[in-house]
């Protein structure tokens, strides 16, 4: 094992792998990624794979728009087919409150240059002919939103990073982090110690455990979210369909399988990633209501993953005091996959040029010191 690294990234999910690639691209040598299991074995490989730009805070909108721009060129840049597909996002409104919120969102999103519209139920049928519009008061639609395959995107970044000299240590667990005078000096793993002067915490649902190795108490908690997938069927719908009201999202993969997912907002924080019968029962009821044609399609698999949730549903990015060389990319609250490509570039700028972008400053852990948080309400 290499006993020294310029940057040690903890976590081989989308954020860790995208950052490894961006660092290598900027010419950083001796980057190392440490992963407890295998690549995308945690939250990344369990996520819905969507990328959307329809958010309710300016920062999330900008971040997501810039990420989609990167996603759209990723297959070419990384020479890997990631199943990137701009099928759009259709977000259904079932209450007058939702319509009012969506009007506000669309106004803000359009001001920021996003091609998004609030549409009538009838127009929804043009986009998804099998949609049941009973109770639907309207929807927002952005056709440049879409999805990609989270395993493939992670593999794509990792493969290219490896070719550029990044070292990946799989099946390797971090057990301690050494520091001296508020500087990190080494990372200890079950396979040995690595001397380094920059450590990145990209440990997804387990991020707070990594921080706690240095006595830090970051406000990120894991929550179980569950998904199921059906057998592959002919094309039924293109966009990701979301309802905040019903706490559900569904999309059809390129191979034809239909994903449906939701989290239980009343479930307490835990590391549980077992599938539950309650979920499958409820999500099938909701799914059939939204899209009756699903009724005779068979469910083949269910699974669960962790959302790493912060108090304002926005990530914590950048160094966490008192350590200016312990960088966090954590707490994406269920949206790490779609933001990762752009976040990796911002973090690279900080590591390479010591440049703290406005985005990183906005996502600094310091924001939790004041109470006036800009909470993104568009979370499902």
């Amino acid at each position, binding site marked *: 094992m290499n006993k020294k690294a310029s940057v040690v990234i903890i976590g081989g999910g989308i954020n860790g792998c995208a950052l490894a690639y961006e660092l290598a691209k900027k010419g950083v040598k001796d980057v190392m990624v440490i992963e407890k299991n*295998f690549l995308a074995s945690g939250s990344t490989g369990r996520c819905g794979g969507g990328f959307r730009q329809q958010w309710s805070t300016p920062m999330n909108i900008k971040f997501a728009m810039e990420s989609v721009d990167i996603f759209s060129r990723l297959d070419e840049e990384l020479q890997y087919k990631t199943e990137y597909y701009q099928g759009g996002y259709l977000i259904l409104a079932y209450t007058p409150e939702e319509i009012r919120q969506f009007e506000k969102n669309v106004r803000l999103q359009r001001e920021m240059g996003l091609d998004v519209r609030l549409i009538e139920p009838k127009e929804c049928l043009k986009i998804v002919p099998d949609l049941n519009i009973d109770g639907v008061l309207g929807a927002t639609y952005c056709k440049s939103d879409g999805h990609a395959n989270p395993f*493939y995107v992670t593999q794509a970044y990792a493969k290219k990073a490896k070719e550029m000299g990044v070292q990946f240590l799989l099946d390797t667990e971090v057990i301690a982090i050494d520091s001296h005078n508020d500087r990190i000096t080494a990372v200890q793993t079950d396979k040995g110690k690595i001397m380094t002067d920059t450590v990145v915490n990209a440990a997804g649902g387990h991020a707070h455990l990594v921080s706690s190795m240095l006595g830090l108490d970051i406000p990120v908690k894991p929550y179980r979210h569950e998904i199921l997938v059906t057998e592959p069927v002919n094309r039924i719908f293109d966009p990701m369909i979301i309802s905040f009201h019903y706490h559900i999202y569904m999309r059809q993969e390129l191979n034809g399988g239909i994903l449906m997912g939701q989290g239980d907002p009343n479930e307490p924080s835990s590391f549980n990633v077992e599938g539950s019968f309650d979920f499958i*029962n409820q999500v099938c009821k909701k799914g*059939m209501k939204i899209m009756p044609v*699903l009724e*005779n399609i068979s*469910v*083949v698999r269910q*699974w669960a993953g962790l959302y790493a949730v912060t108090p304002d549903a926005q990530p914590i990015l950048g160094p966490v005091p008192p350590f200016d060389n312990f960088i966090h990319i954590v707490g994406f609250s269920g949206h790490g996959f779609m933001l990762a490509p752009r976040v990796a570039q911002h973090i690279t700028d900080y590591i390479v040029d010591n440049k703290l972008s406005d985005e990183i400053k906005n996502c600094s852990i310091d924001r939790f010191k004041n109470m006036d948080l800009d909470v993104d309400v568009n979370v499902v």
Partner: protein
Amino acid sequence: MKDDQIIICRCEDGTLADVKDAIHRLGLRSVEEIKRVKRFGMGHCQGKTCGKLISQIISRELNISYEDMAPATTRQPAKAVSVKEFASYQEGN
């Protein structure tokens, strides 16, 4: 028969050549990883046919004892069940 004519995963049309490619070119070492990258075991039968075959191939190609290999995760449902069937369950029944 050639490796690319031997079907290992019937649901996703995976051949022995694909499994060997995953092991030797992509460096994957477990059924779980191969499943995610190649989709084998994600189809209708959920790996009931190919899971053990893939374990055997990995064991042979990488010289790992079959007994030492972690079994692939099995997930519900045990067999494919329709959305309608799952939705019809009411608590208390």
